[in-house]
């Protein structure tokens, strides 16, 4: 079968290689994701950061096979998922097989807990559904229900029996996000994608949800792809960081490397833009200029026009990836001499 493949490294749950995603819009073809490559090792958290519209969510939806059709399509590259034995190339896996993987091997927590749950079905039933669809160990109604109650407890809900019967509108945002997480981990996925799981929540709840994800990672040993634009969250949670800009990966490395020696001017600017507690600042730092129009991307480095380090080579082709260490790579001419 054409969709079965081999992982480059058996220790990875997910390998994305040179992924290309296009959207047909009225304004023209938008290359939302252009040549993105990174991998998620087993049991570790990879933080995918970048500003809104840089292709973070599109990348994650491509992994789930949930791109909006027919406008969005994957035009190239490979997404390899490792469920244990055979690896799947999700780019050409047929829908029927994808359905078996989704929710079971790979699952996703969405950004908006307010709207991501079905308003007319009780939250318990919504978790039951995933178990019913994938987990053959639980066949009877009672078994599924008790597994759901177990999951509700696992995600830190104090009164599982009571919550089971409630509808989403009766729960707060934090509770709903716990339900979403419960749903996502119901079948012990190998890979959990969390698309800005805390963006819609207030800061105290945010901390609780992140702690929950952290604990679950240890308990379940699944890889987590954490999509966020909050560098604080990345610093606290992630093992590896991938920085995206305008549909491309500009820099990736371990969390220590990225935070200690950010190499790409965009990453450096992002770090500078983050306010620091206890430090007096009259004006918050902002990156000047704006993101290039995705329909007509420039032939040179996409960040050149906003970059304070730009020099002559930057007017040339888009810079290729340069390795600064076995784990740290950057796409910038500034580092060309150091690589």
């Amino acid at each position, binding site marked *: 079968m054409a969709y079965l493949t081999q992982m480059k490294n058996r220790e990875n749950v997910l390998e994305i290689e040179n992924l290309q995603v296009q959207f047909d819009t009225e304004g023209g073809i938008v290359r939302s994701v252009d040549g993105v490559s990174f991998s998620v090792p087993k049991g570790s958290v990879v933080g995918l950061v970048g500003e809104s519209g840089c292709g973070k969510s599109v990348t994650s939806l491509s992994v*789930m096979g*949930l791109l909006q059709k027919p406008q969005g399509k994957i035009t190239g590259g490979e997404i390899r998922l490792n469920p244990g034995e055979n690896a799947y190339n999700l780019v050409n896996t047929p*829908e029927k097989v*994808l*359905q*078996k*993987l*989704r*929710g*079971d091997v790979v*699952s*996703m927590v*969405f950004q*908006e807990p307010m*709207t*991501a*749950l*079905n*308003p*007319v*079905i*009780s939250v318990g039933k919504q978790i039951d*559904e*995933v178990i019913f*669809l*994938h987990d053959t160990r639980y066949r009877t109604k009672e078994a599924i229900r008790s597994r759901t109650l177990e999951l509700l407890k696992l995600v830190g809900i104090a009164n599982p029996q009571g919550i089971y019967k*409630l*509808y989403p*509108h*009766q*729960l*707060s945002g*934090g*509770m709903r996000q716990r339900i*979403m997480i419960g*749903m996502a981990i119901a079948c012990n996925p190998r890979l959990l994608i969390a698309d800005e799981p805390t963006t819609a929540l207030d800061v105290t709840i945010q901390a609780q949800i992140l702690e929950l994800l952290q604990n679950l990672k240890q308990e379940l040993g699944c890889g987590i792809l954490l999509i966020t634009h909050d560098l604080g969250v990345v610093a606290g949670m992630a093992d590896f960081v991938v920085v995206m800009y305008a549909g491309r990966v500009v820099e990736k490395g371990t969390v220590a490397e990225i935070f200690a020696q950010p190499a790409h001017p965009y990453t450096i600017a992002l770090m500078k833009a983050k306010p620091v507690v206890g430090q007096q600042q009259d004006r918050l730092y902002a990156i000047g200029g704006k993101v290039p129009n995705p329909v007509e991307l420039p032939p040179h480095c996409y960040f050149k026009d906003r970059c304070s380090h730009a020099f002559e080579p930057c007017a040339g082709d888009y810079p290729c990836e340069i390795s600064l260490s076995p784990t740290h790579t950057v796409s910038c001419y500034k580092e060309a001499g150091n690589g």
Partner: protein
Amino acid sequence: MAKYICKRLGISAGILLVVVFLIYLLMRLLPGSYVENMAIQLSQVPGAKPYEEWVAQLNAQYGLDKGIVEGFFVQLMNMLRGNFGDSWKYAMPVTEKFSQVIGVSFVMGAVALALELVIATFLGIYAATRQYSPQDYLVTTGALLGISLPTFFFATLLKLVFSVKLGWFDLSGLVGRNFQSLSPWGQFWDMASHLVLPVLTLVVVSVGSLMRYVRTNMLEVLSADYIRTARAKGMPSSRVVFFHGFRNTLIPLVTILGSSLPGLFAGSLITETLFAIPGIGYTAYQAMIAGDIPFSMFYLTFLAVLTLLGNLLSDIAYSFVDPRVRLGGQYG
């Protein structure tokens, strides 16, 4: 909930009073009243009293010598006592005439509505799940065609094809010529076959708007976040559409159902006339042009009650399909 229903009933009663008054006012203001027509006929009989005397006598007889406000209260009091009076045109109690003709209209309306709902829901979902595909365009174009077709034109077309060319059904009427000689089952089938074309007409001209409504709603629901969540769970798309999507499309559909309650009893003037079916639409129309105040009052008031009731019912039905309306409370 009980408090809410009581409040709504109170408001409805107020609206109804105003509506009934407006109906009475309009009926009284209609030119060429029943009494005048009758007086003309009676005065033309050889040796009869002159027209003016007849008018005065008949006006007193039918209670039209009173002012509009006074006349209205007399009528209202009678109606409140359950006395709807005798139909002037049909010369029998209005309720009796009504019960004679409502049956066939109700059956027609109910069958047509049921078919409309089933077809519209099915096609609406079919088109919505294949948005911008050739099938979608076919269905939406067909719906638009149905909406645009005038009833009389489409009915005539059906008659031409199925009655004149193919000879499958009679051209008009509710029963065939040999109706009396048939067995009870035969009579049933005879009437049923006479209702096929009228019901088909009703369905085709009104299914389109309902179908477009279902399609639009389904499209909105299908682009909702919770549908993406359902897909992310690995659910087959048929289950996503019919389990997660359809339950949510039911919410707006319920409103439509509530407002179609009066339609079941209103009859359909044009279709009934075209197929010469003695239903309520045709009967009420005849009563109205004859200036038959008691019958028209009864018919229009009945429809007003049903309209108000339909609105109330759809509000209550909301709470069955939408837990957000049912429970309301916030937890945690």
